[in-house]
Each structure stands twice: as structure tokens, then as C-alpha cells.
């Protein structure tokens, strides 16, 4: 594997996770619990889609075969997506979405923080810009975790269950393979074990404030690195890709 091939894959990971989570968030459009939250959730969706555009465009340049951001988003199948398993989890109720976003935003926050010093200029610039966005996503979701966790008995029980259900998808966030190994040596990527330590600190802090308990580490799903997904990604792609696949020459 060359450095370019590894970097190409790395960009797909970052781009795909933002794209898929962004698509999930866009499903909240017009379904938010109140108008303010509806707009907050779709603002986050737009931030994420913007992040995906940068990374997928860059992936296309690295690959050098003329593929555009749209080609990557709309003309790939499930087994070609490298997004985190967490990002494709269904929205469920507002508490489920809140917990998923919190776990993922905290991951992105600590990841982009260190990637801001990446030796690859594009990755570094992308991380600096995205860090500002995910800092807000983290703040927004963490505040909701606290309010739901430390809210009523019902809201506490509901989000504790969301946490317990989603926890098994968090191991996947920190798995690494040869791509990471090669790019860490080049000073481009970062060791996800270090990111995990910081991530756990954030999770524990917020869980404490929210009077929630951290689920036990039991079975962890994995798949991101090998483009293996849950059954939910196919349904998500079917909706997201329908129009460009049915009308390939459609223009905005």
C-alpha cells in the first residue's frame, strides 16, 4: 500500500462518517420536538454534509480517476463505505439521537483536535475548520444528555437505555489497521488509543453530570475498517441515493 492509497482510504473514513451521520440528522428535518431543536439538528446535518464534501472531494483528487464528491456519495454501495458503525445507527427517539450524537461528537472533537496538527495540509485545515463545528455539536448534545439524564425518572431511564444500546458500537470508533499504521508513521494520522483516552474522559464527565452510569464494556461490533455494516446502512443509502440513481443526469 502506498501513502496515497492509505490517505485515500483515510479520507473516505472521515468523509463517509460525516456524510452518513449528516444524512441521519437530516431525517430530523420537520420532525424535531420543537422548532428550535429542529433547526439545531438540521444545522448540525449541514455542518456534517459540508465536512463530507471536503473530504470526499479530496479523496477524488488523491485517487486521480476523476471521481467527484457526488460520485462517492451517490454511486457507491454499502461495502464501499468506511463510515463508523455508530454514525449509521437509526435516529430512534430524541434521546437515542442525542446519545448517538454525543458519543460521535466527542469522538470527532478529540480526533480533529489532534488531526489539526496533521502533516497533511488538507487534513489539518479540514480538522481546524471542523473542530469549530463539532465543538458546538458536542456542547449542544452534552447539554441535552445532562438534561435528559438528570431530568425526570422517565427521561433518565430512556437515555440510560440509549447509552446501553449504543455502547457496543463505540469500540469500532477506535479500531486501527495498516492504513493507520502507515499514516501515523508519516505524521498524518493519529493513534486512536490516545483519542480514546480523551474521549473517555469527556464521556465520564458528562455522564457524571447527567447522573447516568457508563455501560459495561462487553461485546463490541466492528466493521468500519472493512466496510462491513449493519442492515441499516442499505436502507439509508436507498433513500439518499434514489434520485441520482434514478435520474443520473439530474441537475440542481
Amino acid at each position: 500500500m502506498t501513502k496515497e492509497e492509505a490517505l485515500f482510504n483515510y479520507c473516505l473514513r472521515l468523509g463517509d462518517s460525516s456524510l452518513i451521520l449528516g444524512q441521519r440528522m437530516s431525517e430530523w428535518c420537520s420532525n424535531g420536538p420543537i422548532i428550535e431543536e429542529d433547526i439545531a439538528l438540521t444545522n448540525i446535518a449541514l455542518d456534517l454534509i459540508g465536512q463530507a464534501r471536503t473530504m470526499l472531494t479530496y479523496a477524488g483528487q488523491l485517487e486521480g480517476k476523476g471521481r467527484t464528491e457526488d460520485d462517492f456519495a451517490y454511486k457507491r454501495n454499502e461495502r464501499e463505505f468506511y463510515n463508523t458503525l455508530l454514525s449509521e445507527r437509526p435516529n430512534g427517539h430524541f434521546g437515542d439521537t442525542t446519545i448517538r450524537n454525543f458519543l460521535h461528537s466527542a469522538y470527532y472533537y478529540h480526533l480533529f483536535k489532534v488531526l489539526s496538527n496533521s502533516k497533511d495540509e488538507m487534513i489539518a485545515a479540514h480538522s481546524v475548520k471542523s473542530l469549530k463545528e463539532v465543538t458546538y455539536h458536542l456542547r449542544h448534545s452534552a447539554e441535552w444528555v445532562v438534561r435528559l439524564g438528570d431530568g425526570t425518572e422517565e427521561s433518565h431511564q430512556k437515555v440510560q437505555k440509549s447509552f446501553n444500546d449504543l455502547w457496543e458500537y463505540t469500540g469500532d470508533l477506535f479500531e486501527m489497521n495498516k492504513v493507520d499504521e502507515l499514516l501515523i508513521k508519516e505524521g498524518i494520522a493519529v493513534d486512536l488509543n490516545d483519542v480514546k483516552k480523551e474521549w473517555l474522559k469527556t464521556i465520564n464527565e458528562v455522564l457524571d453530570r447527567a447522573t447516568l452510569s457508563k455501560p459495561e464494556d462487553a461485546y463490541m461490533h466492528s466493521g468500519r475498517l472493512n466496510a462491513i455494516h449493519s442492515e441499516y446502512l442499505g436502507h439509508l443509502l436507498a433513500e439518499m441515493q434514489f434520485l441520482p440513481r434514478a435520474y443520473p443526469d439530474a441537475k440542481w
Partner: protein
Amino acid sequence: MNNTDNQGDVWEVFVQSKPGLPHKHAGSVHATDKEMALQNARDMYTRRNEGTCIWVVPLDAIVSSMPEDSGSFFEPSDDKIYRHPTHYVMPEGAKHI
């Protein structure tokens, strides 16, 4: 919070577009506490680069004059044009006077 909905209290939102300028009323949001009011205001009213600072104020903290007050409050100044600083020459380059 009133009993007819569960959206939280109403907060009035004031946005400052540039440092040094006054905060202007932008609208209102629902929220159950200060932090969420601030976040909701950020999401609703600064999406298009409108602001550098936001204030949120609980609606019931605002005291407003009433329409019936307008005669005694505002009309007495109608015929006192000498209170306007119209006879001064504006210094060049002063944009926000």
C-alpha cells in the same frame, strides 16, 4: 412555564452584529433554561453570520410600555425639535452616531 405546551419559556433574543454596536432585538425562542436559550438563539438567529454576541432575556424580565401610554410617554417630545442634535456638523468618518 405555562400549562398549555411543553416547549419551555419564551426568551427574547438580542444579537450584536459587530463589536461595539448595540444588541438588536432579533426575535424569540423557547427554552427551559439559560444555556438552552442561548444555544437555541445561536441556532435560530446566527445561522447566516449575523452576529458576534447574543443576549437572551426571559420574557417576563422585560417591562414594556403599553399602547395607552403613548400619549403621555411619546407625544410631548413631538414639538421639541431642539432636542435633536441637527445643528452639529458630523465629523468625517464617524459611522455609528
